[in-house]
């Protein structure tokens, strides 16, 4: 069920009143049923994966907590990791590794096609697997205690607003909230409405419209001129942000309507002045997850290597982050490019500080912001292109300029998207909240919201809902 569909809007319009009609004890069970219905709408068979994940983390967490023997604790941690990551690897990466191995093997005349499995990638598997594992890892580290209720763990693993694309929550944030009785709260409901409105507008009007152009140009880049390829790259940069932050707004807004708070995932990332800052503001739930559960353990393990430890840990973390996005070389290169930039920034901190002192800080910061934005766009070419070859073709055509008959129109299109996208960010910064409409008078807030829905609904009627980009991950 896509958020940007009438099906989803109808679903929450029915589920929210029912939720508040249920007695406090049954509220979480109701949420669990809703979440499974939501997932089953796509494919009911994969609900079994949610059950397996829930059962393994629930029981492993319990056994880890109850066990006094460190070896036994470790054993149950590994059991949970092997089962959940095993499912993830099987569905998401198995064919990639087999195909890559097969293409290398075929150079020697071998054929391992029979190893290829026709598997459907369960949507959201990377998100809910990572999220579920925080439950056992936090218990193992002694940072959280297990809950007695398997229903609560079930809701934590499968809570529908964030099941498919995050934010990747931590058990210690969600589980305590599930213990409270949640009564209808007008202010939370209002905040939820505003977040859903803004999220739908971002996704449908900014993300999807940009995406239609982007899809066409990236599908057949050879038919387009250099400026049109640049437009596709800028529009994809905006699409990805509008799509994902729009999703997060809808997810957070829906969760608020059910009385739950889930974490922020974006803080105006395109205003970052370095790639390090970018990852502090982009997909925050993933970057903090990687920091907590991958980078830090790696850096601790290799701390005797000195400065090289930081570089190694950063690079490996980001290559794996790239691979997390998708099983393909384009994603590995994307991750490696980000890793390389972060390694450079970590190693050149002193040099950059000196450089900063030589220029006017305002000018220097703006230049750094522009540089970071351009670098992000450059890496997104690999993220979006179908093949590595296509990525290089696009770069090549931009550097080997091809004329267009639509320079002014294309530049205006780019400017329009950049302005509307950045205006959301500027308002978020000014009012220090993603639900910035709440800071306005109620009448103004409703007027703006109505205008947004007035364009969102007809667009949804005339267009097949476009899946969110991160669904595939």
């Amino acid at each position, binding site marked *: *069920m896509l958020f940007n*569909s*009438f*099906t989803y809007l*109808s679903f929450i319009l029915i589920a929210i009143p029912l939720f508040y009609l249920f007695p406090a004890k049954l509220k979480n069970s109701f949420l669990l049923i809703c979440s499974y219905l939501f997932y089953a*709408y796509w494919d009911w068979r994969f609900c079994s994966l949610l059950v397996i994940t829930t059962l393994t983390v629930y029981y492993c967490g319990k056994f880890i907590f109850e066990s006094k023997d460190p070896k036994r604790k470790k054993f149950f941690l590994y059991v949970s990791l092997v089962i959940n990551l095993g499912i993830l690897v099987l569905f998401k990466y198995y064919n990639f590794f087999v195909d890559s191995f097969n293409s290398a093997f075929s150079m020697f005349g071998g054929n391992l096609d029979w190893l290829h499995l026709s598997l459907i990638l369960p949507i959201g598997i990377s998100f809910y697997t990572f999220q579920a594992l925080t439950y056992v890892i936090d218990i193992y580290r002694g940072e959280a205690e297990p809950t007695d209720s398997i229903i609560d763990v079930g809701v934590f693993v499968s809570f529908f607003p964030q099941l498919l694309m995050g934010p990747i929550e931590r058990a210690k944030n969600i589980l305590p909230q599930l213990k409270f009785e949640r009564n209808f709260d007008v202010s939370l409901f209002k905040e939820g409405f505003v977040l859903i409105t803004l999220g739908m507008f971002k996704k449908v*009007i900014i993300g999807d*419209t940009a995406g*239609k*152009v982007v*899809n*066409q*140009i*990236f*599908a*057949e880049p050879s*038919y387009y001129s250099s400026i049109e390829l640049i437009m596709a790259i800028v529009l994809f940069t905006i699409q990805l942000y509008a799509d994902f932050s729009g999703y997060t707004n809808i997810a957070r807004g829906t969760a608020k309507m059910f009385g739950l708070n889930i974490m922020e995932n974006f803080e105006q990332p395109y205003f970052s002045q370095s790639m390090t800052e970018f990852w502090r503001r982009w997909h925050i739930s993933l970057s903090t997850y990687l920091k907590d559960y991958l980078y830090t353990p790696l850096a601790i393990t290799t701390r005797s290597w000195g400065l090289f430890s930081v570089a190694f840990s950063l690079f490996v973390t980001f290559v794996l982050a790239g691979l997390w996005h998708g099983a393909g070389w384009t994603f590995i290169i994307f991750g490696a490019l980000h890793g390389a930039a972060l390694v450079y920034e970590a190693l050149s901190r002193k040099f950059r500080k000196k450089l900063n002192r030589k220029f006017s800080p305002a000018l220097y910061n703006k230049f750094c912001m522009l540089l970071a934005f351009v670098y992000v766009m450059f890496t997104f070419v690999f993220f979006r292109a179908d093949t590595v070859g296509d990525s290089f073709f696009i770069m090549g055509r931009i550097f080997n300029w091809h004329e267009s*008959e*639509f320079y002014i*129109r294309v530049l*205006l*299109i780019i*400017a*329009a*998207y950049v*302005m*509307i996208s950045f205006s959301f960010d500027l308002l978020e910064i000014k009012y220090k909240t993603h639900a910035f409409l709440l800071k*306005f*008078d*109620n*009448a*103004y*807030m*409703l*007027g*703006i919201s*109505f*205008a*947004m829905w*007035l*364009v969102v*609904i*007809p*667009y*949804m*009627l*005339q267009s*097949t809902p476009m899946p969110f980009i991160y669904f595939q991950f």
Partner: protein
Amino acid sequence: MKKIILSILKFSVAFILSLVVLEIFFRLSEVFLPSIVYDDPKLGLLRKPNAQIFSMNEGFGMGDVNEYGYLGPGYPKEKNENTLRIALIGASMVQGLELFDRAHFRKLLEEKLSAVTGKKVEVLNFGRGGIDLRGIYTTYKYIASEFHPDINLIFVGNASFVGKDDKPGPDYTVVGDSLVIDYSFAESSQFKQRTKFKFLRLTSIGNLLKRGFEFYQLGSPLQFILGSLYKKPVIVQSNTTAPSPLDRDMFYNINGVILNDMGKANTNGKISNIIVMTDSYPAYYNDLIKNDSLPVFNLEKEFEMRKKSGEILDYWKGSNMQGHWNHHGHEVVAGFLLENLKNIKF
């Protein structure tokens, strides 16, 4: 009371200002533009001269309607004597909004033919989406003819013969052996409603609302709510199924006279009208199509042959949709027309 009025005022101001900002965004980004057509009381739906086109359905195309109201570069009505002028007349396949003019077979044919003949060649695109043979005839007779083409390439397929065009426009009746044009559409309730609400189409938001409403009418609320759980597809595609026997006879008579009239223009061995058959046509039209006076270029055969050898001509990778000719399809059409036109004495 004062508070309520003030709130209503604030709401209205915020609402209207937001719509203005959105209108500006839509116009600049071109994602939704005002309608590119207007209702002419004589010729029905026509394109607005100088309108911007930004299409992103199956494919992605940017372009303009030229100052004369057709697609591609604007060649004036008067033709230079040494210029070979070709008019492309047909429905959406000819219109080709799915791609840029530079990739359209119009442009490719113009360049190729110019190189082969050594003459200045002008190819004019009069394609109009959704028209059948009656609309094609109107275009041929009352629009394209004003530009004095040496050759009219008339693209027809199955949909051209079954009377699928239900938009307000001139109709024809057969009286004896000739056609009588009927302008009564201008008195129809549909035309009057369109005229009454034409202001909606003058803005991007209005045009978006109008299109949203049209799509809503095609489905049902339950379809939109249940999505993929509903049995029927959300949007019903335009109907190109066979007409009723009564309509079939009527269209057959009208189409027969239209084809005959087009054939009459090819006199004294000079060919000026050519049928380009894009896909299969109803079998009972065999005797009308295989008419000595009207040459037929069988594009369908060419496409079938190429599709058999694995060429993809009507699939759009970017939207994962099948329908109109894709980039490669246009290259094939241009090459096919060039080969066939070489044999025609201009």
